[in-house]
């Protein structure tokens, strides 16, 4: 292992089922059910997944759902907007926690 993140590890995902295949199977069934077309299209779900991948900063997920979004027919404009949505929510979440800081400061200040 030369890096913590190895590109080819994505293809080894199923190895995580080695010690508890029952849990892996439950997860995969759930995962596939979630990502299949439903009230949302697979295209919309891939864009959500891409945004979440950036929010959780998972390079495997970013790789998988950049490809997944393109394979669902999305374009770079849509994908970049989705990433901005993730950034906006993360930014907003940071700022709203600033109120906690204000509250703490207010409580301890004379």
């Amino acid at each position, binding site marked *: 292992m030369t890096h913590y993140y190895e590109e080819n590890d994505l293809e080894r995902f199923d190895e995580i089922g080695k010690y508890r295949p029952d849990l892996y199977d439950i997860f995969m069934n759930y995962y596939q059910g979630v990502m299949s077309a439903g009230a949302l*299209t697979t*295209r919309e779900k891939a864009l959500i997944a891409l945004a979440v991948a950036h929010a959780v900063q998972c390079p495997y997920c970013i790789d998988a759902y950049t*490809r997944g979004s*393109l*394979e*669902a*027919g999305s*374009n*770079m404009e849509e994908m970049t907007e989705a990433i901005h949505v993730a950034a906006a929510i993360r930014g907003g979440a940071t700022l709203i926690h600033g109120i906690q800081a204000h509250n703490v400061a207010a409580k301890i200040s004379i």
Partner: protein
Amino acid sequence: MLPFARKLEDLGYPDLRAASVDILQVNLGWRCNQACKHCHLLAGPDRLEQMERDTMDEIVRVAARWSIPTVDLTGGAPELNPHFEYLVERLAATGTHILSRCNLTVLLEPGKEHLPEFYRDHRVELVCSLPYYQADLVDRLRGTGAFEKSLEALQRLNRAGYGEADSGLTLNLMYNPAGAYLPPEPGALEEIYHRELDNRFGIRFNRLLTLLNMPIGRFKDFLERSKNYDRYMGKLVAGFNPATVAGLMCRTLISIAWDGRLYDCDFNQALDLPLVSGLPQTIWDFDLATLATRPIRLADHCYGCTAGLGSSCGGCLAKE
């Protein structure tokens, strides 16, 4: 990688065979006014390969003699063959259904302005390349300005009646990916194409077909240059879908090269993989009974037709 023939053998197809010959796919030559980055034939303005009239005459004879339901014209840009109109007129007289693959921009070339009305008058079904509904992806694949020219060509086809309700003039569009990834299922994307092209440009069409980029020709060069080849092939192999095998286009189609030689498909033609030895090898030897049950010549690029929903000149092969 498991060889494609072995993969089929394991599935119970020890020798994949044709089921019929419903389509003669005629490649009129490799000359094209574009040099698209994904072209499996390396077609372009400098290519000299062109079908001659005597070959066309034999194709017309075969289509009539064997009552072939459909003749599918391709290239290159088939319209750049100087005998294109000659062939279409004679095929139309046989009563066969004519389908022509059009890159759209050729309709704006000098001397080709009459083509929308010519297609209409001969009831030619059109499959037109439009890899996306936005300029940047189309121009990246097909050359700067290709998107704007394609829009102009589509508007001319609409004015001739193509894509209009109840006209009976079919105008289908063909999507292909602008890189090393697979095409989407066509349904959702077709809705977006309809909405975007109609709202922004007033363009109407019938269906959107999706085609996978075959890992040969210029696209293979790109895959190798960008170090995407192994992963792309891995994706095709991993995506093998047994449900596509029954509908593979080689089972109902035969490909005729510009020089009259026969192939199982246009991709085998590009790779110069002729029909299996012992079969008729040229249009002059055509024999329906023999060719309709022929064994298909397979190679590893065939994984491109069986990945995911499958891929063919008529779009995807399996249900979503």
